[in-house]
């Protein structure tokens, strides 16, 4: 890679060992992926729940945090993805003390480095949305795909270590979606029925993700018949990134880089598939066995204020009989409290959790401690992840999930 004088100085350790590690890590990644040089970034976003970090990762962070203040502080605004718990609800979730201890230690280390504990995967809705063309080092697949596709920003998937490195150096290797040539569409999918609910947008994302198959594919969708809202694109993008490891999509006439098909694709790009009602219906599996549901979860991504409004309305006058967990960000939660949404959800027996995400919060251990196996959700992303954690997850509409939480059964 071509390095500036400043980058050579960082590599030589002239700005301390944390930045020396950071630039060395970034050079190793950049060389592997063909980066010619670095690009400055204006924000970093770190995914670092302690189930992923483990004790070894927390100890690693603590070693960086123990460096002198001038050596350990991040250089650009650096924020965090959801944590592994909501401390106020940990006992109810039957999370264990060692999990909370690891979380506290990781938080202390991040704060010592000047990192803002935003604990959210919907920062594009709540903190500081990216601007078209702005280079970022974002570390949640849902954040990356939304920012790249809907906002026109430029980021690769930056895992926790690389996002932290970007925070420390203020730059990232210039490869992948920082470059114009990688932002052209490589996969054309037509949509013959535009989704009508959030779980259907997730279904569409999952189907396109399966077709795409890997990180370097850029789908372009045609045929969407109305402008989707932010929550709809949030669920679509999160599922597409989850099922396909995809970081960028275009929608003709909707997303900013694809006002026309020709803006992002060659005329010769073949139509790979058409997705309609039949394909979407075939994707969904029915509930296991007699439809018994152990837990209902709204999470992945965290819910917006508007999603919470819809959930509160569905719960008004009803009472859940199995746990209903709704997860939002620490930025949205106070508004939900002030607007009375939290009280309405809790009056029905639901729980509104803040600053965590269900699958990032020791999902396997929560399942074992609470006897949860059959899970209903309107998040296609959550369905994709939780099978490996021992759950039998089922995708359903928000309305059907609420009904299941009240009756204990999910209708076939």
């Amino acid at each position, binding site marked *: 890679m071509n390095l500036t004088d400043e980058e050579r100085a960082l590599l030589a350790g002239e700005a301390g060992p944390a930045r020396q590690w950071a630039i060395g890590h970034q050079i190793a990644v950049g060389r592997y992926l063909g980066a010619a040089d670095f690009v400055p970034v204006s924000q970093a976003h770190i995914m670092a*729940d302690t189930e*992923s*970090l483990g004790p070894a990762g927390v100890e690693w962070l603590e070693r960086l945090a123990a460096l002198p203040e001038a050596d350990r502080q991040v250089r650009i605004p650096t924020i965090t993805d959801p944590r592994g718990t909501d401390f106020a609800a940990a006992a109810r979730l039957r999370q264990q003390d060692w999990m909370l201890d690891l979380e506290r230690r990781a938080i202390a280390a991040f704060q010592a480095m000047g990192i803002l504990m935003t604990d959210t995967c919907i920062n594009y809705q709540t903190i500081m949305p990216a601007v078209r063309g702005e280079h970022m080092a974002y570390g949640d697949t849902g954040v990356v795909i939304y920012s790249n596709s809907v906002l026109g920003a430029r980021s690769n998937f930056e895992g926790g270590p690389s996002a932290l490195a970007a925070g420390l150096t203020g730059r990232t290797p210039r490869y992948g979606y920082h470059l114009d040539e990688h932002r052209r569409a490589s996969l054309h999918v037509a949509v013959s029925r535009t989704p009508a609910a959030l779980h259907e947008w997730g279904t569409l994302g999952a189907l396109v993700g399966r077709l795409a*198959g890997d990180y*370097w594919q850029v789908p372009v969708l045609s045929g969407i018949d109305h402008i989707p809202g932010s929550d709809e694109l949030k669920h679509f993008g999160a599922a597409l990134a989850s099922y396909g490891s995809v970081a960028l999509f275009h929608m003709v006439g909707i997303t900013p880089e694809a006002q026309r098909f020709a803006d992002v694709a060659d005329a010769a790009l073949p139509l790979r598939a058409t997705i309609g009602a039949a394909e979407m219906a075939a994707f969904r599996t029915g509930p296991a066995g007699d439809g018994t549901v152990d837990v209902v979860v709204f999470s992945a991504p965290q819910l917006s204020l508007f999603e919470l409004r819809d959930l509160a309305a569905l719960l008004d006058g009803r009472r859940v009989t199995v746990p209903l967990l709704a997860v939002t960000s620490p930025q949205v939660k106070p508004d939900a409290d002030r607007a009375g949404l939290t009280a309405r959800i809790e009056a029905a027996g639901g729980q509104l959790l803040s600053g965590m995400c269900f699958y990032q919060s020791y999902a*396997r251990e929560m399942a074992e401690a609470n006897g949860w196996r059959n899970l209903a959700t309107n998040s296609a992303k959550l369905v994709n992840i939780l099978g*490996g954690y021992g759950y039998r997850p089922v995708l359903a509409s928000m309305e059907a999930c609420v009904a299941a939480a009240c009756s204990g059964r999910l209708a076939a």
Partner: protein
Amino acid sequence: MTVFAAAAGMGERVRGRALVASDGFSARYDLDRIAGVFSRPDHALAGQSYVGRILVLDAAKGGVATAWMLHEMAARKIAPAALVLNRVNPIMVQGAALAGFTLISGFAVDITRAVANGALVEVDPGADPPVLRVLENPA
């Protein structure tokens, strides 16, 4: 001995038995990292131990957690010996860089069809180009 050249690699040279499938890889989505087995029910390797094996798989999948999890698994010595992929994503590279983990990717053939499950293989990221050598095929 059959040798397959890769587009890129990092980490130390390692030798071990290949665990092969035409399926993807994500540490969060696919593994029970406590038990050391593939746990995703619809994964082609569901129920099989990955500990000490050289995983030969198709593409990197899923989210960003693998960037930490390779380091976490290596610290507990419940980790694969190396990862060999047709198609990599940045997360696998970032995770391997943090953990000092052996990773190679990008072949002229579908590597999951070219290497037999159970073969004794050597992964040499330091060769120019990086290579996977098949030392012994299973009986």
